[in-house]
């Protein structure tokens, strides 16, 4: 799978892609194990990244990934193509992680952070140059900067910039309104830009 999130036989959009997904699903429902293996090969990396961003424990991710695809396998016949296949599978991964958080009594914490897209740390107004793109090239502080985001913000940044989900798809995966997704992304970019440009400035001074 490529890292762009286009690894589905369909890719995220497109009529021919949807048709390929439909054919793949028909084969799986008919009992074609190879077809299910193809589906898993395509969507496993995206689901693993969603689970990792939500759970942050690598030892748990493999179990939740298995749970995700078990649910996908069991519910596949109910899929009606109201969204793209990858959006639906990602939603299954999301709800699987949410169920895990519920068992660990961490769901409430997640939901509060999800529904109130506030900055984890107060940030100043958008800093001037250097731009985010420049800051990203100059430093290796992305991991630290990501640490300044709330968990839902990290998830949404990943869905948007790594998996190439648009606002509507992120809203479908997470079940929050589009406006909330936009807010999260806006604030997350602001926090990242602030953290990265600060690092870049400090680096320049040194």
């Amino acid at each position, binding site marked *: 799978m490529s*890292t*762009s999130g286009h690894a589905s036989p369909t890719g995220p959009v497109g009529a021919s892609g949807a048709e390929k997904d439909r054919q793949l699903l028909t084969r799986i429902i008919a009992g074609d*194990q190879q077809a299910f*293996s193809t589906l*898993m*090969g395509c969507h*496993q*990396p995206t689901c*693993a*990244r969603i689970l*990792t961003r939500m759970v942050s424990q690598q030892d748990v*991710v*493999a179990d939740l*990934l*298995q749970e995700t*695809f*078990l649910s996908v*396998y069991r519910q596949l016949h109910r899929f009606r193509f109201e969204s793209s296949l990858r959006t639906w599978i990602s939603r299954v991964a999301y709800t699987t992680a949410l169920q895990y958080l519920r068992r660990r009594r961490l769901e409430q914490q997640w939901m509060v952070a999800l529904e109130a897209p506030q900055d984890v740390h107060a940030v100043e107004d958008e800093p001037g140059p250097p*731009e*985010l*793109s420049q800051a*990203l*090239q100059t430093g290796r502080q*992305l*991991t630290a900067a990501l640490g300044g985001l709330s968990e839902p913000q990290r998830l949404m*940044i*990943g869905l*948007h*910039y*790594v998996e*190439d*989900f*648009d*606002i509507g798809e992120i809203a479908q995966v997470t079940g929050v309104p589009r406006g909330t997704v*936009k807010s999260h*992304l*806006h604030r997350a*970019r602001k926090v*990242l*830009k602030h953290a990265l440009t600060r690092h870049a400035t400090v680096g320049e001074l040194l």
Partner: protein
Amino acid sequence: MNRFTEPNDSDAAALSKALREQEQGIATPDVRDALYRRLRQESRDGGVGYVAVQALLLASLLAAGIWYALS
């Protein structure tokens, strides 16, 4: 395809590139084999023969228990 929402495309592209580079270093688990084993096991456990054997074993156990209690 450009699906980013912010006005500054170069920032979006740079962020996307940096995040993907970061993700490349993280191994993705492959759970296909484990899942197939589980599905096979569930399919076996849900089979008529398996359920019949389990019911027979349970009935035998109950019968043995009753016989032991009465004797």
